C-alpha cells in the first residue's frame, strides 16, 4: 500500500521498523549518531558502508585516491559507467547518499596512506574507522594512531576467495548482549518469603476444578517440593533439593500425585499446568548460576580499583559485586521476568507482580551500594539514573566485556612464543588447518608485496614462479612468529597465487555484511562483537576466529 504523502517522521520509523525490532529505539538512536570514516572504497569498503548507510548512520567520509576505472565496473556496485575517470570516492559517496537521504556523506580524494601521513588528526572526528584493503604495514601505523586518539578501528579485507576481519579498540562493554537462549530465572531452589507465602496460600485439596487446573506451575513445583521434603522425614532441611536421579524421580511422582484425574462430574481432566510443571521440573533442583563471563567481570580489577574517572559500567559492576556478596547471597539480582504459563489471568498476573516486586527490591539494594561507592569516590554530583541501574540489574547475567589486542601485539615477533604454538597447532589440526593456512598466507602476501612491489600472482605470467617465493615468505613468517614447527600447505600457497589478490564482488559482499554487522554492534553497544582475527574461507564456505 503506497504511503507517499506520509510525514518525514512517520516514514523514518517505518523505514527502520524491521531493524528497530532487533535493537530497539535506543539502539537505533546510537546508530543515528554514528560518524564513520571509510578508508578505500573498492567493493569491500563500499559494500560495508552501503549496509551501514541503509541502517541510518549519521554520516560518513570516504578516503580514496583512485579514479573510477573499468575494473570497478566489473566488481563494484557503487560506481556508474558514466563517471569513468572521476574520483571514485566522490562517485561512491554520491551513490550511497541516494540510498538513504537521511545520511550525510563526504569524501577526501587522497590515499589513506597519504592522508594519515599529512593529517593524522583527521581521524579524531569519527566514532569508527573502517579500514579496507590495506596491507599489514599500513594497518600497524593506523592502529597506533586510532588507539592514541581513542577511535575504534575495524579492519576488513577481501583477497581472492578469502576474507579477513579484525576489530581493534581497548575495551568494549555491553549490558544488553541479548543472548539467543536464556534460562528463566525462577529461583525455585531459593524462593524469597513472599513467593513461598503465595505458593503455600493454595490448598490444592480445597480449590475447585477450574482453579486446580489453572494454578501456575511455579506454584505447583514449590508445593511439590514441600511435600517431597515432608515425605523424607521431619528432620529434612527446608532447603533440601532432589539431588540424584532417584530423588528426582520421586519428586516427579509427588507432583503427579497432586493431579486430579476426574472432575466432580466424573469426566476426565486434562491438567495442562501439571504437564508444564513436569516439563519444567528441573527448575526445582537446578540452582541459579552466574555465567562464567559475568563472574570474570565481577572479579575484574577495574571494578575494584575505583577512581573518579571510572566509567559508569564499572561502577555498576562494583555495586553489583557488593550485592552478590550480601543481599544476593552469592546470586545476581532477580531478573523479574516469568515465561507465559498455563494459568488464569489473575493468577498469572499475581505471580508476575511478585517476581517484579522482588526484582525491584534487588535493584533498590544495588542502588544503595552504588550510592555508597559514589560517596566514597568523592565525586559530588555524579549519579547514575535509576532507570540505568534497573536496566543494568535486569541484564546482570547478560553483561559482557570484550578486550582487543593491538595489531602490533598480534603481528610483532616480540613475545611470539605463546601465539606461535597456538598458530602451529591450528595449522596442524584437521578442523582448523585450512583457515589457519589462509591467515598465515594473507600476512605472507603482504610481506611478498612489500618485497616485490606487487602481490603474488598479480599477473598471469608470474603465477607459477611466485609460488615458491610466497612459500618462502610464509615460512619466514612462521619462524618470526615462533611457529617454525608449523607447516604451510602447498595447495593453499598455490591457490593464493592463483587468486592474485583479486577482489571478487561476492567475497567483498560477504565481508561487507559481516563488517557492517560488527560495526553496528560496536556502535549500538548491543549483542556481542567478535574478538580475534576472523578468516572467511569462500572455498569451503566456513569462518574461523583465531585468538592470536
Amino acid at each position, binding site marked *: 500500500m503506497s504511503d507517499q504523502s506520509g510525514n518525514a517522521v512517520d516514514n523514518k520509523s517505518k523505514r527502520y521498523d524491521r531493524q528497530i525490532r532487533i535493537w530497539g529505539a535506543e539502539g537505533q538512536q546510537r546508530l543515528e549518531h554514528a560518524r564513520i570514516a571509510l578508508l578505500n572504497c573498492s567493493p569491500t569498503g563500499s559494500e560495508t558502508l552501503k549496509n551501514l548507510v541503509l541502517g541510518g548512520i549519521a554520516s560518513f567520509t570516504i578516503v580514496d585516491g583512485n579514479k573510477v576505472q573499468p575494473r570497478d565496473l566489473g566488481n563494484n556496485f557503487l560506481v556508474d559507467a558514466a563517471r569513468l575517470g572521476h574520483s571514485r570516492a566522490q562517485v561512491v559517496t554520491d551513490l550511497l547518499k541516494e540510498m538513504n537521504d537521511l545520511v550525510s556523506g563526504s569524501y577526501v580524494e587522497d590515499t589513506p596512506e597519504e592522508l594519515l601521513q599529512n593529517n593524522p588528526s583527521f581521524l579524531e572526528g569519527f566514532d569508527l574507522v573502517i579500514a579496507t584493503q590495506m596491507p599489514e604495514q599500513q594497518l600497524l601505523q593506523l592502529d597506533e594512531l586510532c588507539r592514541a586518539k581513542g577511535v575504534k578501528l575495524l579492519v576488513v579485507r577481501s583477497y581472492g576467495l578469502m576474507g579477513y576481519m579484525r576489530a581493534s579498540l581497548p575495551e568494549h562493554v555491553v549490558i544488553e548482549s541479548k543472548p539467543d537462549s536464556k534460562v528463566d530465572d525462577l529461583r525455585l531452589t531459593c524462593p524469597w518469603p513472599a513467593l513461598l507465602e503465595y505458593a503455600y496460600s493454595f490448598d490444592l485439596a480445597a480449590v475447585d476444578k477450574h482453579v486446580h487446573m489453572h494454578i501456575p506451575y511455579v506454584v505447583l513445583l514449590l508445593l511439590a517440593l514441600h511435600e517431597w521434603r515432608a515425605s523424607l522425614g521431619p528432620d529434612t532441611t527446608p532447603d533440601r533439593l532432589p539431588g540424584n536421579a532417584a530423588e528426582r524421580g520421586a519428586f516427579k511422582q509427588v507432583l503427579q500425585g497432586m493431579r486430579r484425574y476426574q472432575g466432580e462430574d466424573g469426566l476426565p481432566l486434562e491438567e495442562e499446568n501439571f504437564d508444564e510443571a513436569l516439563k519444567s521440573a528441573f527448575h526445582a533442583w537446578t540452582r541459579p548460576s552466574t555465567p562464567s563471563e559475568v563472574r570474570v567481570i565481577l572479579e575484574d580489577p577495574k571494578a575494584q580499583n575505583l577512581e573518579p574517572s571510572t566509567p559508569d559500567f564499572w561502577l555498576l559492576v562494583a555495586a553489583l559485586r557488593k550485592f552478590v556478596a550480601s543481599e544476593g547471597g552469592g546470586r545476581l539480582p532477580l531478573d523479574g521476568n516469568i515465561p507465559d504459563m498455563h494459568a488464569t489471568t489473575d493468577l498469572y498476573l499475581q505471580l508476575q507482580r511478585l517476581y517484579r516486586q522482588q526484582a525491584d527490591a534487588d535493584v533498590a539494594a544495588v542502588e544503595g551500594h552504588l550510592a555508597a561507592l559514589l560517596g566514597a569516590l568523592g565525586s559530588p554530583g555524579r549519579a547514575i539514573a535509576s532507570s540505568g541501574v534497573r536496566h543494568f540489574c535486569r541484564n546482570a547475567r547478560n553483561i559482557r566485556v570484550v578486550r582487543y589486542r593491538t595489531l602490533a601485539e598480534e603481528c610483532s615477533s616480540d613475545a611470539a612464543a605463546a601465539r606461535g604454538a597456538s598458530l602451529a597447532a591450528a595449522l596442524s589440526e584437521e578442523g582448523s588447518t585450512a583457515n589457519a593456512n589462509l591467515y598465515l598466507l594473507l600476512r605472507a602476501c603482504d610481506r611478498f608485496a612489500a618485497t616485490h612491489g606487487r602481490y603474488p600472482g598479480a599477473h598471469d605470467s608470474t603465477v607459477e614462479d611466485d609460488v615458491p617465493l610466497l612459500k618462502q615468505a610464509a615460512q619466514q613468517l612462521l619462524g618470526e612468529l615462533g611457529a617454525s614447527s608449523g607447516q604451510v600447505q602447498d595447495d593453499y600457497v598455490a591457490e593464493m597465487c592463483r587468486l592474485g589478490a583479486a577482489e571478487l564482488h561476492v567475497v567483498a559482499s560477504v565481508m561487507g555484511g559481516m563488517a557492517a554487522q560488527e560495526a553496528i554492534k560496536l556502535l549500538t553497544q548491543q549483542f556481542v562483537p567478535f574478538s580475534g582475527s576472523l578468516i572467511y574461507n569462500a572455498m569451503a*564456505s566456513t569462518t574461523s576466529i583465531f585468538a592470536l
Partner: protein
Amino acid sequence: MEDTTPTNSSERWIDIDKLLTRNGNLVGPGFEPGPELRDFLQQDCKVLCIGAGGLGCEILKDLALSGFVNIDVIDMDTIDVSNLNRQFLFRLQDVGKPKAVVAAERINARVPGANVTAHFGRIEDMPLQFYQEFTVIVLGLDSLEARRYMNSIACSLLEFDEEGNPDMSTIKPLVDGGTEGFKGHARVILPGVTPCFECTLWLFPPQTKFPLCTLAETPRTPAHCIEYAHLILWSQQRSHEEFDTDDEEHMQWVYSNALARAKQYGIEGVTFQLTQGVVKNIIPAIASTNAIVSAACVLEALKLITMCSTGLNNYMMYTGSQGIYTHTVAYERDPQCPVCSAGVEVVAPADTTLQQVIDLMLAHPQLGKMLAHPSVSYGSKQLYARGIYEEDSRPNLAKPVRELLEGDEPAALLTVNDKKLSASLRVRLRLKEPQQ
C-alpha cells in the same frame, strides 16, 4: 574478437577472470579454466532469482557483478517503506511499484550489459517449462511454503534410469538462502544428489499457535490480547470482511480492540508495533545478514556452474548476534523422500488391483498425508485419471495392476498426481509373490 569498450573489456572482468582462467589445485571436479567459461556465463547461462526483496536485491547485484548476464527475477510484491532499510534497489518514490520490475530496472541501469527480465507475479502461476530454461535457480524467499513449492518444481524435473539412479543431465540445481535477524543459512540443493528441501523438513519445527481457550478465556500476555482481537473478535464482528494486514484501518481496529481487552484484564504492554509484529508475523531484518547470505548463495551458484572452486556441501548456517559463527553440515538425502527419490516404496501382493494400490497409497504414513484423490500413470500411460478422463479410466481400477504394467518387473515406477500436490510424486510399486 575481444570487446575493448571500457564497459566490457577484459580489464573490466580482471578479478573474475583470475578465478575462471587460471588452473588450481583446490577447484571443483572437471574444472576447465579459460575464457570460454566467462563466455558461457555471459552468453549461454540463464539464471533465475526467486524474490526481489531483502535477499533478492542482493542476489541480483551479486549475480550481475559475478559475470552473469541473462537473469530473470520473479516477485509478486510491491514496494513498502519498511523495505527501504535493506532492499537497496528501491527508493521512497518507488513505494507501491512492483519489486521485480524496479529491481530489474535498477540493475540494468547500473551494471552495463546486465539483462535482467522482471516477472511481476506468483511463482505458482509460471508453467514448468519456464523453470526448465534456467541453468540454476537461486531462492531469496521468506516462507516455507514457497520453498517447498520451488523444491518440488526442481525435483519434478529430475528423471531416473531403470535402476533408480538420477539422470545427471536432468538435475536442476537450486541454491536456497534465508535470514532472520542475525541468523541465516545458505544451502545447495542438487536434486537426486544432495538432500532436497523436503528431505530435511525436520529442520523447520512447526510454528506454535496460541490455544483458543487461552485467547478466549485466560489471556495473560499482550500477544494473547492481540490475537484475540485479530482472530476471534474480527470473525465475530466483521466476518463479512476478509482481514487484510496491509489495510491500515484493519490493523488499527485490531490494535484498539487488543488494547481494550488488555485493559479489561489488567495486562500491560500492547503497542501498535507489537500488534503489527504479531498479526503480520513480522520477521526482523537487517541489511548485513541479507548481504552475507545472498553473496554466499551466488558464490555457490558460480562455483556450481564453473567449478572454479570447491562447492559448499551442502548446508551452511550463520549466526552473528554473539560473535560470528558459521556451521557447515553435509546433510544426507532421505532415500524414501517422496519428492526427490526414485519413489516411495509401496509393497503389495502380486494380484493387487489398481484400486487396492491407490488405497495402499492413501493409507501410507507418508504418502497418505500428501494425497486426497490421486491420479496414477505409468510412464506415458494413464492408468487412472481424475477429471475428464475419469470415466474412461475407471474400469482399470478393478484390474490387477500387474496387467496394466509392462513385463514381469518386480518394481514399477508410478507417477502420482493430485490436486494437493504442487508437482507429481514418484511411487515404486513392488509386487510380491505369495511365497516371498
